[in-house]
């Protein structure tokens, strides 16, 4: 039941309301009547207890990292340390106005400055802006920088961004938003970029290439150096989508692979929470030649302490991405996480994420599941395809995904990548135990058995969730987006 259905006219919470008697009554400065609202908005009128009960119970209708294994490929659902949350929400940080005098924000600014430096070291790049508020905004910043770079050189013919067909949807969408034409490059049977096709595609119209490495197919792009050389030789620049950094962080630096712009999803590799869809943070890093274009604000260390650099000091910047300093609270959490794991720990992230993925891949293969790229090592994630099961048993990846919910697991990614039919992109992350991975294998095996013996059980799944399978089609056909009394 929605909260509006629990609303009762005139119910209110005086403990949460300003006491108007305590405020001087505005007279001279009274607001003219025609500016005033006459019908109150349809907000719920419920008691504090009712509100708490409603949202507490709603929360219980979620699966989350804190309650379930959540092997959602390309999303890096690892444990979000509560200690990071605790320090990021210390009252001093929480109460700071973003436009307070700089003398008032030195604790925050010092921390952000250090984070800027640490991310620069981790990626092997020349500089960093913490401004982007998610991966996609980091992509936007990076591609806008590439555009600004070519424009500044008067190189106005470069109107094309190359994107491997395996790329995440944000890559082409970003390129388009930045005014570029998107050209897709196919991948070969082993999941690597098709070099021949790339060679054909690059040229004087190439502004740049966007690459995720490891790719969203769960494999490491082995010829990344050749790719970089090809694009660079053609005068294009390289963009690194860092959403999959978890697989290599501390081991390989995007800067060393030859990338000119790199974004990092702090809400993936650096364990900040996903919050049911955000907020995240997508710091953007630049090679030497893209440095001038980084989005503002940037953090600088001066004589009087730390401060934010704005457009006056960064004349070539692509500009601002947010009204203030980006998702500061998320940046603080990522900083805290890096300090907790330390230098050695950053590398261990990749080691054990990769171990977990390869172990799970090996176990599933032994159990008879088809791995999409059987000749490849898994990275932090890997793909299986249920094409055979779909053909012989009439069971889709979606059915299996829904049935997994009944077994107490969130489902792997299935809507993506589009290249592999009936796929499951599985990313266990390093924070899960071997026992949990074994339980997951057992569940998949059991579901396949069910699919053979009582397929309607699988097709009708989920059975144990608060609602049964939901009708997406009806939702899109006749959108019901706001409640009406």
């Amino acid at each position: 039941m929605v909260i509006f259905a629990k609303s009762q006219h005139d119910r209110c919470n005086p403990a949460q309301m300003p006491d108007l008697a305590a405020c001087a009554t505005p007279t001279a400065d009274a607001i003219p009547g025609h500016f005033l609202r006459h019908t109150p908005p349809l907000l719920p009128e419920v008691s504090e207890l009712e509100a708490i009960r409603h949202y507490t119970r709603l929360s219980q209708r979620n699966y989350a990292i804190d309650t379930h294994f959540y092997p959602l490929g390309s999303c890096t659902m690892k444990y979000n340390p509560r200690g990071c949350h605790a320090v990021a929400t210390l009252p001093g940080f929480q109460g700071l106005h973003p436009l307070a005098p700089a003398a008032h924000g030195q604790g925050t600014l010092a921390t952000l400055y250090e984070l800027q430096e640490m991310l620069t070291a981790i990626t092997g790049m020349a500089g960093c802006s913490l401004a982007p508020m998610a991966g996609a905004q980091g992509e936007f910043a990076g591609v806008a920088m590439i555009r600004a770079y070519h424009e500044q050189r008067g190189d106005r013919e470069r109107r094309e961004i190359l994107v491997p067909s395996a790329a995440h949807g944000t890559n082409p969408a970003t390129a388009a938003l930045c005014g570029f034409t998107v050209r897709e490059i196919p991948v070969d049977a082993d999941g690597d970029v098709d070099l021949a096709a790339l060679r054909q595609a690059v040229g004087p119209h190439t502004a740049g290439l966007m690459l995720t490495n490891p790719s969203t197919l769960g494999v490491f792009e082995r010829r990344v150096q050749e790719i970089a050389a090809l694009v660079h030789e053609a005068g294009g620049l390289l963009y690194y989508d860092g959403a999959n950094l978890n697989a290599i962080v501390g081991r390989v630096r995007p800067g060393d692979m030859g990338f000119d712009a790199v974004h990092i999803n702090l809400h993936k590799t650096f364990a900040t929470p996903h919050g049911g869809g955000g907020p995240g943070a997508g710091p953007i890093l630049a090679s030497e030649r893209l440095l001038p274009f980084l989005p503002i604000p940037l953090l600088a260390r001066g004589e009087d302490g730390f401060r934010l650099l704005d457009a006056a000091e960064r004349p070539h910047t692509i500009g601002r991405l947010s009204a203030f300093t980006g998702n500061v609270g998320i940046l603080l959490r990522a900083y805290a996480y890096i300090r907790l794991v330390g230098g050695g720990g950053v590398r261990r992230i990749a080691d054990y994420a990769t171990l977990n993925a390869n172990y799970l891949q090996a176990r599933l293969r032994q159990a008879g599941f088809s791995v999409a790229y059987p000749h490849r090592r898994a990275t932090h994630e890997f793909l299986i395809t249920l094409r055979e099961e779909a053909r012989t048993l009439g069971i889709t990846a979606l059915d299996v995904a829904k049935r997994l919910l009944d077994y107490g697991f969130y489902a792997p990614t299935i809507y993506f990548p589009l290249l592999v039919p009936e796929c499951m992109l599985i990313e266990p992350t390093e924070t899960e135990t071997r026992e949990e991975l074994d339980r997951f294998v057992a569940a998949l095996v059991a579901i396949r058995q069910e699919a053979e013996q009582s397929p309607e059980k699988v097709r009708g799944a989920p059975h144990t969730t608060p609602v049964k399978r939901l009708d997406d089609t009806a939702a899109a056909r006749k959108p019901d987006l706001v409640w009406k009394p």
Partner: protein
Amino acid sequence: MPFIPHTEADVRAMLATIGVTDLDALFAEIPAGLERGGADTLPSPLNEMALRRLMTERAAREGSTLCFVGAGAYAHHIPAAVWEIATRGEFYSAYTPYQAEASQGTLQTLYEYQTMIAALTGMEASNASLYDGASALGEAILMAVRAHPDGARRVLLPTTVHPRYRAVARTLTRAQGIELVELPFTAGGGHIDPQTPHAQATEAVAAVVIQHPNFFGTLEEVDALTDWAHARGALVIAVVNPATLGVLVPPGDWGEKGADIACGDGQPLGIPLAGGGPYFGFLCCKTPLLRQMPGRIVGRTTDREGKEGFVLTLQAREQHIRRARATSNICSNQGLMTIAATIHMALLGPEGLRRVGLACHANLVRLLARLATIPGVRVLFDRPRFHEAVLLLPRPVTEVVTILAREGIAAGYPLATDYPALGEALLVCTTERHGAQEIDHFAAQLHKALGV
């Protein structure tokens, strides 16, 4: 190993299952010479205890004890219940609700959010959030231009719109060949003269942006501006502070037909200042514009037994389906912030929000009355305003701000950089959190700092 649960025995057994002898072997596909690390220069690990000590020291350095800065971020009271619930692990550590049946908590809350924010703004639909108010304005402009039937690419952007919102809108729309035309404000009122737009109406205009109350706190003639825009075939994009909408006419009711798009920052609805973020942008529209909306949208539907449930919907607009032709590249949004805002709005209700608005404004009236007694301090603009005002000071603003900062007071937002023509101007703001004592204290300290 922090946050890695593997014992040595686990590692051995797992490597054996994979069929390799060590962890390095898992990275064999990485070309030789590329592996170089990068984390070596990072500091060694701290435990949570040491981290807490470090960060507590830093947080203690943040000195604002009394804040009169507004300018787009507002220090409102937030009921303790809001974040107690919003940070429950089930909300905090979930992802975007792709598997709807296992995400009804997030989904229903977002549906309720959409309902509440649409009700507040008087609009018919809402998405489930964008990054912040400024980027929401950018998206609103892109959306209006996409939606405009004539393909017009000019957008009128008054200088009474938050300067940083304008800056972000420029960043986000630059590559789309959109022309952002800035309208000047009246010297006396600090608002857009409803007559002024006529002068700009030489070419087709896709949209007119109206911030209300505007950046100076001044109330705009929203009805006249809206009707003018509509008469010219332009869409109206309202930029509003949701905390004012318990008191002020919602954009959906401006003029004859109401604004077409309403956006802004949701921070005043239960989100702490937190140095600037995370906040969240909201974006609402009338039904005809729905399919141009960027971002996630939640819809109500039924399950196979006819029971009510909620799903992400209209996904054909989004990057993961439509890729280069999506309505935006946004993927992660500010989910958790909207969950908090929903709880906040549910706790306040219509009457609570109305009182917040009235109290904010009453405190401003009180503050201005106190300041009127200080020689040389002048209040700029003579139009009706709402909880923010521009002061003209008889001493350089930067000096005054520095002096007050030493007393723990964040005095206001200096306007010199964004509006050099205004002179020594300081934008000040009050919310319901300012007690009479604090207002008096501020006035007294300001008086002292001015040395008059």
